[in-house]
C-alpha cells in the first residue's frame, strides 16, 4: 500500500456476490449421491436465507412485541377517540384534521424542527472533532474522555436542576459570566426568545459525549497506514483530518446524524423537567404535545395521531438525507 489512494480503495472494497459454488468446492465426499445430498443440505443450511432466519428469529420476535405491535396499536387508535372511557368510537381522520388546523401543532412542528436543526449539526461536528482530538496520544486522554462522557450518564432530573440554577436570570452562573464580560444578561429559560436556545445548549452539553464514544469506536477502523502515507506525502494535520478522517468516517457519521436526529425529535426529558413546553409555547415540541395529550388529557387517540405526524415528519426529513448520502444506508 504505497500510496494513500491504493490504501483507500483497498479498504473501501467493492461488494460482490457470494458464489455458492465456493461452498461446493469445499465439500469433500467420495460418494456422488451422498455428495449431492450433503451438498444440497449444506447449501440450504449455509444459505443466506436460512442463516438470516436463524439470526433474525429471536431479535425480530422480540422487536415485534416491543416495537411493531405498539406502533401498529398506535396507528390504529389514532383513528379513534381512545381515551380509556366507555365512549370509545372510531372517528376516522378527525384527529388529523384537528392537528392540521390548530396553530399549536404547527408551532410544535416548527419548534421541533428548530430544536433538531439547532442541535444535530453542531453536536455531530463537535463530537467528531473531540473524538479525533482524544484519539491521539495526548496525556490525560482518559480523564478528558470521562469528563466528556459524564453529562451523558447524569440523571436528567439532576441535570435539569443544575442547569436551571446556572441559567437563573438573576445571578445564575451564566448571567454572572456574561456580566463579567460586559454583556447583558439573558432570560434563558424564562424568555420565549431564548428558551429554545437554552434548551439546545443543555442538550448539546448532555449529548456530545455519547456521540463522541461512537466516533471513537469508528476511528479505530481507520488504519494508521493512511495517516503515515499521507504524512510521507507531506500532508498537514488538518489536511489529514479533512481528507482522511472525515471521508473514512462517513458511514459512522451518517449513523450518528441519523440517530442523533431521531433522538432529538424524540427528546422529552429536558422539556419535561425544565419548561413543560413554555414559556409561551416556545419549547413545545411534538413529543411534548404527545405526552401532554396522552397522559395529561388522557386523549390517547389524539396523542397517537400526533405521534404519527411526528413519525411522518422524521421520515420526510430523512429522505433528503438519504438521497444526499447515496445508497449506503
Amino acid at each position, binding site marked *: 500500500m504505497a500510496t494513500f489512494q491504493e490504501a483507500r480503495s483497498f479498504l473501501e472494497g467493492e461488494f460482490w456476490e457470494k458464489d455458492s459454488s465456493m461452498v461446493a468446492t469445499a465439500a469433500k465426499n467420495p460418494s456422488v449421491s451422498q455428495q449431492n445430498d450433503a451438498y444440497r443440505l449444506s447449501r440450504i443450511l449455509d444459505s443466506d436465507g436460512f442463516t438470516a432466519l436463524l439470526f433474525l428469529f429471536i*431479535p425480530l420476535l422480540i422487536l415485534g412485541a*416491543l416495537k411493531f405491535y405498539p406502533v401498529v396499536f398506535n396507528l390504529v387508535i389514532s383513528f379513534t377517540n381512545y381515551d380509556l372511557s366507555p365512549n370509545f368510537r372510531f372517528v376516522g381522520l378527525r384527529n388529523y384534521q384537528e392537528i392540521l388546523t390548530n396553530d399549536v401543532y404547527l408551532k410544535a412542528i416548527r419548534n421541533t424542527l428548530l430544536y433538531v436543526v439547532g442541535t444535530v449539526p453542531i453536536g455531530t461536528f463537535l463530537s467528531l472533532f473531540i473524538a479525533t482530538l482524544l484519539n491521539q496520544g495526548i496525556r490525560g486522554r482518559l*480523564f478528558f474522555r470521562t469528563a466528556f462522557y459524564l453529562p451523558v450518564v447524569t440523571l436528567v432530573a*439532576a441535570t435539569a436542576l443544575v*442547569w436551571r440554577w446556572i441559567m437563573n436570570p438573576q445571578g445564575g452562573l451564566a448571567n454572572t459570566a456574561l456580566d463579567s464580560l460586559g454583556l447583558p444578561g439573558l432570560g434563558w429559560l424564562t424568555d420565549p426568545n431564548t428558551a429554545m436556545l437554552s434548551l439546545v445548549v443543555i442538550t448539546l452539553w448532555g449529548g456530545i459525549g455519547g456521540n463522541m464514544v461512537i466516533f471513537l469506536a469508528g476511528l479505530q*477502523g481507520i488504519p494508521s497506514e493512511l495517516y503515515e502515507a499521507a504524512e510521507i506525502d507531506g500532508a498537514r*494535520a488538518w489536511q489529514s483530518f479533512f481528507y482522511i478522517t472525515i471521508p473514512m468516517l462517513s458511514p459512522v457519521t451518517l449513523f450518528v446524524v441519523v440517530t442523533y436526529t*431521531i433522538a432529538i425529535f424524540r427528546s422529552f426529558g429536558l422539556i419535561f423537567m425544565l419548561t413543560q413546553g413554555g414559556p409561551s409555547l416556545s419549547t413545545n415540541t411534538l413529543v411534548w404535545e404527545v405526552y401532554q395529550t396522552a*397522559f395529561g388529557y388522557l386523549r390517547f387517540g389524539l396523542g397517537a395521531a400526533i405521534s404519527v405526524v411526528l*413519525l411522518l415528519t422524521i421520515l420526510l426529513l430523512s429522505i433528503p438525507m438519504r438521497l444526499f448520502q447515496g445508497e449506503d444506508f
Partner: protein
Amino acid sequence: MVSRSSPKLGGAFSRALTYFALATISLFMLLPFFWMVSTSLKIDAEIFTPGIKWIPSQLDWENYTYIFRDLNMEVLFRNTIFVTLIAVVAQIILCSMAGFAFARLHFRGRDVLFLAVLITMTVPFEVLVLPLFILIRRFPFAGGNDLLGNGGIGLMNSYAGIVFPHLVTVYGIFIFRQFFLGFPKELEDAARIDGASRLRIYWSLLMPNSAPVVGTMGLFAFLWAWNDLLWPVIVVKENSMKTLQAGLAIVAQNPSRWGEMMAASVIITLPVIFVFLLLQRFLVQGVATSGLKG
C-alpha cells in the same frame, strides 16, 4: 496503547491549543457534576444560601447516610445490577446477530425489513408505553394469567418484565449493521474460501474483531437499562423488586429535597462511570486491520 488512527498533531503551539481547548470544554462538562457532588455534601442550610459556593464549608455525609439507611439500597442495587447485566448481554448478542444478518446476508426483503425496523426507532417510548404495558400485564401463562392473559398480573413485578424493553434495541441493530458493513470484506472472503460457514464468520471472525462496537453497545445498553425510570416504575409496584431509579424516586425525582436528591444522583451515576472506565480499553483497541498487513 497509543492509537495512531488520527492525524498527528505537530508543533508545540497546536498541542498547547489542543490542551487548552480540551481543558476548557472539560470544565464546562464537569461543572454541573461537580456542583451536584458539592451540593450533596453540603448541610441543608448551606444549599440555599444565595450566591455561589463551590466547596462546602464542612463535609456532611448526612444525605448519603440517609439514603443508605432508609432506602433499602442492597435490594435496589441487586435488582438493578441483575436486570442491567441481562440487558447488556442480551443486547450485544441479539443486536449483533440481527446487525450481521442485515449487513452481510442476502435475502428477499432485507432492505425493506431493515427500513421497517428503523422506522420504529422514531417513535418515542412514551407512546409505546401503554400498549407495551398491556402486553406485559396480559402475558399468557405468566404471573397467574391464563392463555388469554386474564386473571393474573402477567410479567409485572418480575425481572422479565423489567428487562423486556432492553432485550433488543433498534439502535443496537443499526450500529452493529453499520459496523459490519464497514468491516473489510477481504478477511471475510478469505475465510469463506477456507470453507467457513456464515455462522463461523460471525462468531469467530467478526465478533472478536468488533471490540469497539461491542464496547460501545455494552456501555450504552448498560446506561439505558441502569437509568431507566419510566418503565420500572410502571411495571413494578412491589418494593422488593424495585430498581435503583424507581426506589430512589422518592428523593431522586422529588425536587424539594435537593441535598438528598443530589446524593441519590451521585450514587446512581457512579457505577456507570465505573463501567465506562472499564470499557474504555475496548474503545481504543485498533485490531480491525491487523490481519491485513503484509
